[in-house]
């Protein structure tokens, strides 16, 4: 074997090993039946306007130009991949990422709401992960709160003329983190602590989710940057056509 071939084999082995030792476990999302019915209805109702807006946002974008479809499909696929990977974290439990930042930055946060619901439905029905009764609450945290924050952070970073990659990293990371913060708040509102009320309860739930999620949020930020670099290198016409990169920008 040549030196290069040996390197490839080693790389393959490392990848196979790291995949093989990742334990399989359930993680994140509020479980089926864990929210009182009233909360399920309210969170579900809150999601509806965002989903409707998302539907129109996608339809308008696609009517404007069909090319956007490929990037939209890739954003959706990114959420599929990222949210199926459960990664061990420093706290000794596993969790997974959301992957919603990419679509929010490339398209609009409301468009991601639709993509997110598809993923959540897939997991709720086939995997008993998350749930149909808690779909509203989970949609709000993963497919609405997260992407909207990611979008806002990216816009602010652009205004501040920060390096685009730094902006993407921050946006995707914070969007991921917020998803878990919102989940904590949702659980805390349904289960206020007897001694300290909702606030004490929020602290407790955050204590479970936040330390686990922090390293994963960093991973999500890095992966989002990687995929955008890939798109910038090979799919410039598409990125220009959806307005992500302005025509006069020369790179």
């Amino acid at each position, binding site marked *: 074997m040549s030196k290069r071939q040996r390197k490839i084999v080693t790389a393959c082995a490392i990848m196979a090993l*790291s995949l093989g030792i990742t334990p399989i476990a359930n993680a994140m999302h509020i479980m089926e039946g864990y929210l009182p019915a009233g909360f399920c209805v309210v969170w579900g109702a809150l999601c509806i306007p965002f989903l409707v807006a998302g539907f129109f946002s996608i339809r308008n974008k696609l009517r404007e130009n069909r090319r956007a479809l490929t990037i939209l499909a890739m954003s959706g696929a990114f959420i599929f991949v990222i949210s199926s990977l459960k990664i061990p974290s420093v706290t000794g439990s596993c969790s997974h990422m959301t992957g919603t930042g990419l679509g929010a930055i490339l398209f609009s946060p409301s468009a991601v709401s639709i993509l997110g619901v598809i993923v959540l439905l897939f997991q709720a029905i086939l995997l008993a992960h998350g749930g149909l009764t808690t779909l509203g609450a989970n949609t709000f945290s993963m497919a609405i709160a997260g992407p909207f924050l990611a979008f806002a952070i990216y816009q602010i970073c652009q205004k501040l003329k920060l390096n685009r990659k730094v902006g993407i990293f921050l946006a995707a990371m914070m969007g991921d983190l917020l998803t878990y913060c919102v989940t904590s708040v949702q659980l805390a509102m349904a289960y206020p602590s007897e001694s300290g009320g909702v606030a004490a309860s929020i602290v407790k739930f955050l204590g479970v989710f936040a330390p686990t999620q922090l390293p994963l949020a960093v991973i999500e930020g890095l992966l989002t940057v990687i995929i955008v670099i890939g798109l910038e290198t090979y799919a410039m016409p598409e990125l220009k056509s959806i307005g992500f990169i302005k025509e006069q920008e020369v790179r």
Partner: protein
Amino acid sequence: METKKKNTGLVIVLLVLVALLAVVPLFLKKGAEFGGSDDAGSVMVEEVSGKAYTPWFTPVLESMLGGELPGEVESLIFCLQTGIGVGVIAFFMGRFVERKKQESLHNDHH
């Protein structure tokens, strides 16, 4: 070409970082269970509310199967989810890469 080379280096560095972040916890917390934070969440629900909580709704699939989805089948479906996603991304990325190659070939001939 210059920026492309720079990007390749950056991508490699980022990928290594990702791998490290994912693998290092395994060694830091030897023997830990690495269960889901969902389960940690339900333990916390019990602690906060002071009593064991019985979910009022069982997942549709579980009630149809009369029990939990077997672990192996669950990982199969998770793999399916990953596979669908990777397939879509790889398909379009492959097309983009090839298109760019064709374009630059085309430009060279002129």
